[in-house]
C-alpha cells in the first residue's frame, strides 16, 4: 500500500496537487477524490470500480484523509478534497498507538475548545482518566505544552498538523456506536484485551524486522565482520568521532528517539539542529539531568545547583520551558537535593523533544542531507590466500584515553610506551 502512496506523491508522475481554501487560509497539497480515482485508473490500468475500491482502502487505513468530513472514512469520486497523511502517522510505522498518546490528544482537544469532544471521545476520555489516573497530571501538562508549541507555528502548518493528528486517531480509535455502549464495553472488554495482547506480540515481529538489516550476525555487516576477516574497518567506520557516518547508522536514528540519543554522533547532530531552532537548551538540560542521576553521590548537590543556575532560575541564561506545576515541584525538591530530584522535569523535557523536535529533525534538511551523503561501505573482497591471517592490530585501551587526559601536565612515558604496540603478556 505504501508503494502506491509513494508513487502518488512523485512530483513528476504523481498526483496533481491543488490548494485548499479554508476561509482565509490557503493550504496547499490537497487533491480531489475524482483526481485520486482517475490517477489510479491511469497508473494501474484498472476499472473505475477497482480504483474506487483501492482508494477506499487507502482512506480506511489512514494513508489519505478527507478534509471536509473527517469522520467519514471513504473515498468519494467528486470534488471532495483529500490530503496525504504524513509517514510519521502511517499505520505500519507509527504503531501501536499507546493509551498515553491518545489521552494527551484528547486532553489537547478538550483544552483547545471546551465541548469540542464528541460523545464517544468524551467517554474514552473519562475511561482513560480513570485508568491512568496516576499519570493524569503528566498527560495534562504534555497536552498544554504541545498546544503551546503548536501556537508558535504558521497557521497553515498548524491546521495541517491538526488534521493529520485527527485523521490518525480516527483510524486508531474508531468511534463506537451509541447503542452498544454498555453491553459492548462489558462484553468486548476481554476481547479488546486479547486484541491488545495480539498487538503487543506483533510488536516483536515488527522490531525484529526493523532491525534485521542492522544485525551483523544475521545479515553480516559491511565492509566485513572484523572477527571473520581480521579487518577492523567496520569499527573504524562506526566509531564515535567519524566525520561521515554510515547509512545504516543514520537510518537507525529514525527508529526511535532513544536510538538518536544513544549515539553520540546522533546527539551532536540533534544539538546542531536544535541550535538552529533555538531550543538547544532542552537537550543540554536533559544531559545535565542524566549526569546528576548517574554521577557521583558526593557531587549531586553541586551539580543540582549548577543546573538550577543555568536552566531553572528565573532569568537563567538557558532557561528551559517547563510547566508551572513541575517547576514548582522541582524547585521545592532542589532545597533538599537528591539523585532523582530532577526526574520529573527531565521526563517532561524528554517527552517534549520526542514529540516535537525529534519528528521535525527527521523531516529536516539537515537529516535528509546527512542520510543522502552517508557512506555505504564496499564489501571487502575476500583475500586470495584465505589462510594468510592479517595482522591483528591492537587498539588503545579506553583506560589510556582517560589517563592521558588526567596526566596532561605530567609526563608518563611508561604508560604510553606500554601501549605502543601489542600489550605485553602477563
Amino acid at each position, binding site marked *: 500500500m505504501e508503494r502506491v502512496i509513494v508513487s502518488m506523491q512523485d512530483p513528476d508522475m504523481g498526483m496533481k496537487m491543488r490548494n485548499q481554501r479554508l476561509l482565509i487560509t490557503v493550504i496547499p497539497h490537497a487533491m480531489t477524490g475524482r483526481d485520486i480515482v482517475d490517477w489510479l485508473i491511469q497508473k494501474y490500468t484498472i476499472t473505475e470500480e477497482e480504483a474506487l475500491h483501492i482508494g477506499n482502502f487507502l482512506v480506511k487505513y489512514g494513508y489519505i484523509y478527507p478534509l471536509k468530513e473527517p469522520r467519514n472514512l471513504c473515498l468519494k469520486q467528486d470534488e471532495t478534497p483529500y490530503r496525504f497523511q504524513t509517514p510519521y502517522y502511517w499505520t505500519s510505522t507509527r504503531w501501536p498507538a499507546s493509551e498515553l498518546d491518545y489521552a494527551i490528544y484528547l486532553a489537547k482537544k478538550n483544552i483547545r475548545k471546551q465541548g469540542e469532544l464528541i460523545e464517544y471521545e468524551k467517554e474514552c476520555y473519562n475511561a482513560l482518566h480513570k485508568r491512568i489516573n496516576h499519570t493524569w497530571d503528566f498527560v495534562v501538562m504534555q497536552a498544554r505544552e504541545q498546544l503551546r508549541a503548536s501556537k508558535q507555528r504558521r497557521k497553515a502548518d498548524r491546521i495541517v498538523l491538526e488534521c493529520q493528528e485527527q485523521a490518525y486517531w480516527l483510524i486508531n480509535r474508531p468511534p463506537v*456506536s451509541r447503542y*452498544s455502549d454498555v453491553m459492548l464495553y462489558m*462484553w468486548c472488554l476481554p*476481547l479488546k484485551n486479547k*486484541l491488545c495482547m495480539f498487538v503487543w506480540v506483533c510488536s516483536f515481529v515488527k522490531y525484529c524486522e526493523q532491525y534485521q538489516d542492522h544485525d*551483523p550476525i544475521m545479515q553480516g555487516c559491511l565492509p566485513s565482520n572484523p572477527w571473520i576477516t581480521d579487518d577492523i574497518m567496520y*569499527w573504524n567506520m562506526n566509531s564515535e568521532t567519524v566525520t561521515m557516518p554510515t547509512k545504516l547508522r543514520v537510518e537507525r536514528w529514525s527508529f526511535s528517539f532513544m536510538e538518536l540519543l544513544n549515539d553520540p554522533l546522533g546527539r551532536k547532530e540533534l544539538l546542531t539542529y536544535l541550535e538552529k531552532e533555538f531550543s538547544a537548551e532542552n537537550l543540554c538540560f536533559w544531559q545535565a539531568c542524566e549526569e546528576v542521576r548517574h554521577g557521583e553521590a558526593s557531587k549531586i548537590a553541586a551539580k543540582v545547583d549548577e543546573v538550577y543556575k543555568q536552566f531553572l532560575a528565573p532569568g537563567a541564561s538557558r532557561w528551559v520551558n517547563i510547566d508551572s506545576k513541575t517547576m514548582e515541584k522541582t524547585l521545592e525538591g532542589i532545597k533538599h537535593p537528591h539523585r532523582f530530584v530532577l526526574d520529573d522535569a527531565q521526563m517532561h523535557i524528554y517527552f517534549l523533544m520526542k514529540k516535537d523536535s525529534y519528528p521535525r529533525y527527521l523531516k529536516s534538511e539537515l537529516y535528509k542531507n546527512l542520510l543522502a551523503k552517508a557512506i555505504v561501505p564496499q564489501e571487502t573482497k575476500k583475500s586470495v590466500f584465505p589462510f594468510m591471517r592479517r595482522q591483528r592490530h591492537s587498539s588503545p585501551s*579506553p583506560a589510556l584515553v582517560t589517563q592521558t587526559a588526567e596526566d596532561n601536565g605530567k609526563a608518563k612515558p611508561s604508560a604510553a610506551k606500554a*601501549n605502543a604496540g601489542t600489550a605485553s603478556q*602477563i
Partner: protein
Amino acid sequence: MYPSIHPSIHLSTLTSISSSPVIIYVHLAVQQLQTLCFLANFPLAKMAAQEVQPSETIAKLKSESEALKTKLEEERAKLHDVELHQVAEKVDPLGQFVMKTRRTLKGHGNKVLCMDWCKDKRRIVSSSQDGKVIVWDAFTTNKEHAVTMPCTWVMACAYAPSGCAVACGGLDNKCSVYPLSLDKNENLAAKKKSVAMHTNYLSACSFTNSDMQILTSSGDGTCALWDVESGQLLQSFHGHAADVLCLDLAPSETGNTFVSGGCDKKANVWDMRSGQCIQSFETHESDINSVRYYPSGDAFASGSDDATCRLYDLRADREVAIYSKESIIFGASSVDFSLSGRLLFGGYNDYTINVWDVLKGTRVSILFGHENRVSTLRVSPDGTAFCSGSWDHTLRVRE
C-alpha cells in the same frame, strides 16, 4: 425497520483474522466486531425502547442475535491464546547459520564463571574459579590486565561503561571495583575499592549507565544498588525467597527498572527508585540462572535449570514463548539476544550452545566446541559476535 443482518458476509471476513495475523486487520476486526455487536444487540435495545412488538418477530430476532453471539464467542476463543509463534507464522524462516569459533582465549587456570564485554566492542573481562580476573583484548587475544582476587569462585564480573574499571566478586560476599591502570609496575589490587557488602555470595553485578553506580545480586536473596565512590547502599530490593542468581538492566527510555531471577523460580522486575517489585513471573520449574532483556526493553528471556528458556512480555504481563526440546535435558546457564532480537543464544550445561529463533520458537542451530559446561554467554555490544565462557577454562568468540 430493522437493519438487515447478513451474518455470512460479516463472519467470513472475521475468519480471515485467525489465518492471516496481519496487524492492520486488527483495526478492521475491531470495527467489524463492534458493528456486529451493535447489530446483535440492536433488536434487544429496540425492544426496550418500543412498547408493543408482535411476539413472533421478537422470537425470530432473539434467535438470530443468539446465533450471532455464539459465532462471535467462537471467534473470541480463537484469539484467546495468542502465542508468539502463531503470530510469527508469516515471517520468513531463517536459513542455516554457520557460526565458527573465531577466537579462543586460553589463560585461565580453572573454570571460567563469568564474562562481560567492554563498550569498545573488543575487550572482555572474565573471571574464574581460581580467583583470577583477566582483561583481554579479544580481537588480538592478548591479555591486558590480570587481578588475583583474595577469594575463589569469582562468580560475577562486569566492565565499566567508560572502560576504565572492572567490578568483580564472589565467595567473598563483596563486590570490588578495580580501576584499570596501564602502568605495568602498578599492582591493580592496590587501588581496589570495596563497594558492596552482602551476607552471602555475590552472584551477579552490573554497572548502571555510568561508572558511579553498581547493581548487585546475592545469594542472600537480595539485590542492591551501590554508590561506587562512597560504597554507600543507595537502595535494596527484597522480595526473592531464595538466592538471586542473575540480573539485567532495562534498556528503556526512563532507564529505571531491572529484572532479577532466582532460585525461587521467580523473575522479578524492580523499580530502582522506590525499591518496589513491579512485576513477578513464576512459570519456570527450577532455578532461573540467567535473565536478559529483549533489545526493545518490552520483554525479557530467562534460562533455567529446567532445560527451558522462556520469553516474558512485560506489557502483557505473561510468558509468551517457551524454547525447549525434548532432546535438551540439561539446564541453560546463560542467555543473550542478538542485536535485532531475532536470535536467542543459550549456553547449556551439556557443553553446547543452542541458537533459537525467538519469533518462531524453533532451534536454528546447535554449536559445539566446549569441553565442559558453558557457564556464561554474552553478545558483543555492536552484535558482531558473541563470547561464551566454559568450565573447560577457555572462552570462545564466535560469529
